């Protein structure tokens, strides 16, 4: 370090400016944290996306849950062929169930505009049904209830159709 640099860093004014920057950053961080707590707090008002944003979120939610249902279908197919070890089956089934549940609860927690109420009911009902079905898959997988797999696979295929139908009801 040069002498001039060293001198400028030991200058009280320089030090005060540095402290002011740090203090400002700390205040900004605190304000942002409080804002974030306010936004995500369960006690606060629900998020109220506008019409376009809500439709966008509904499409994304249906796509994600469709992916979870497809994962469960693939898992049951591979399990029926004895290609996946037991612990692996359980984790994949549980991950699919949890992921679908998170998506469904997030979308259900949003406040739709009155014009979207009908679509909201249709979409959240499908998401909820998909979550219930994925719970049934997880229960059967953990119990190694292989006899139920064909029926569950059939139900998952029907659920995919239901999700596609719901996607069709959400305007693009």
């Amino acid at each position: 370090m040069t002498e001039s640099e060293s001198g400028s860093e030991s200058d009280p004014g320089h030090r005060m400016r540095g402290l002011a920057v740090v203090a400002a950053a700390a205040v900004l961080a605190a304000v942002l944290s409080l804002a974030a707590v306010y936004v995500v707090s369960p006690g606060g008002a629900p998020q109220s996306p506008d019409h376009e944003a809500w439709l966008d979120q509904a499409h994304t939610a249906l796509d994600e849950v469709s992916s979870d249902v497809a994962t469960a279908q693939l898992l049951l197919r591979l399990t029926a062929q004895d290609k996946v070890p037991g612990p692996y089956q359980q984790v994949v089934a549980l991950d699919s169930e949890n992921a679908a549940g998170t998506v469904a609860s997030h979308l259900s927690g949003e406040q739709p505009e009155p014009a979207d109420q009908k679509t909201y009911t249709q979409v959240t009902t499908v998401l909820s049904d998909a979550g219930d079905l994925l719970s049934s898959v997880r229960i059967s997988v953990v119990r190694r209830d292989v006899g139920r797999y064909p029926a569950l696979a059939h139900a998952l295929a029907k659920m995919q159709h239901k999700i596609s139908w719901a996607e069709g009801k959400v305007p693009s």
Partner: protein
Amino acid sequence: MSRFFAVALGILTAIGGFVDIGDLVTNAQVGARFGLSLAWATLVGVVGICVFAEMSGRVAAVSGRATFDLVRERLGPRVGFLNLVASMSITFLTFVAEIGGVALSLQLVVSVHELLLVPWVGVAVWLILWKAKFSIMENVLGLFGLALVVFGVALWQLGPDWGGLLQQAATASKPADEHGSTYAYYAVALFGAAMTPYEVFFFSSGGVEEGWSTQDILVMRANVLIGFPLGGLLSVAIAGCAWLVLGPLNISVDSLGQVGLPVAAALGKVGLSVALLGFVSATLGAACETGLSVGYSITQYFGAQWGKYVRPREAAVFHAILLLASLGAVATLMTMVDPIVVTEMSVVFSAVALPLTYFPILVVSNDPDYMGDQVNGHLANALGSLFLVLVCVAAVAAIPLMIYTRMGQ
């Protein structure tokens, strides 16, 4: 014969050590959605990491000193500190992701919640960093990481239309239902995953740990120029498997369990078990590398004694940092943050930090005071400059793309 063995071992460990949790998840995500149309991004990233790893390895071999040691001396404490903060933050984030990755991999084996496994993984990683010999740690985990070759076998077993796959890779044609912005976001993510900063820190510091000299430059180049590209092929194989099995079902990858399903489809339980061995080894190896890299970067910057080649008592600060980093990573994961999300973030933020990581390496490797007659040649400088431009573009684009596409949704 021993030289041949050293080259072969180095190449094998470079292949096995190339893939980490970021590569596993990102390549499967991209493969399921885009097939091999983004293989070019992996290819560009692999060439980039080869260019800069070769430079940093050469710097270590010629000067006997590692990257951060020279960056601070050559560019001054301020630029060095900026470089340290950016690179070390990303490396720590990657360390968190890797420890989470080990826990997720073990969860697939034992079906115990990952939060119960995270503390034990943290302890295991710290013990390896503290007790295991550097060469044993690198070679054993690197060789077991080769188990991921099973993705290549699975791809072959799935019997794809090779012509179609090659055409998809060659034409880089984006699927019609995907947005250009999402395509660009994942291109940056793949580039960031291939060029993760810790790889060069670990490589150059590892060279110092192993006492490289100018006589080892050829072996080092063989490791980099053969091992890394073959490791990159593993990444492409992961993407190919995901495209063939998950793509037709419109499955988007958001868990490690989904990454292994194509191997189960192709090779059954045996193949999946080998893949699991690969997951655990690759993530554990990367966790050790990133953990060490956190310690290397801080101690090298501040001029403290560092490395596993000295006794822990002589490198107390280095080992204290390793302990604190392990504790910090475990604490972060215990907040119930999703390791897959941490992985996605680490890959994208890697891209942001790339210029600060690679610019100093280019400067140091061009300095005849350090490098003597091993200073960069025309080709190394041309490639280094070209990739510096590319990493700057990726760094500028990464955050806006992440926000605009909502992390690739």
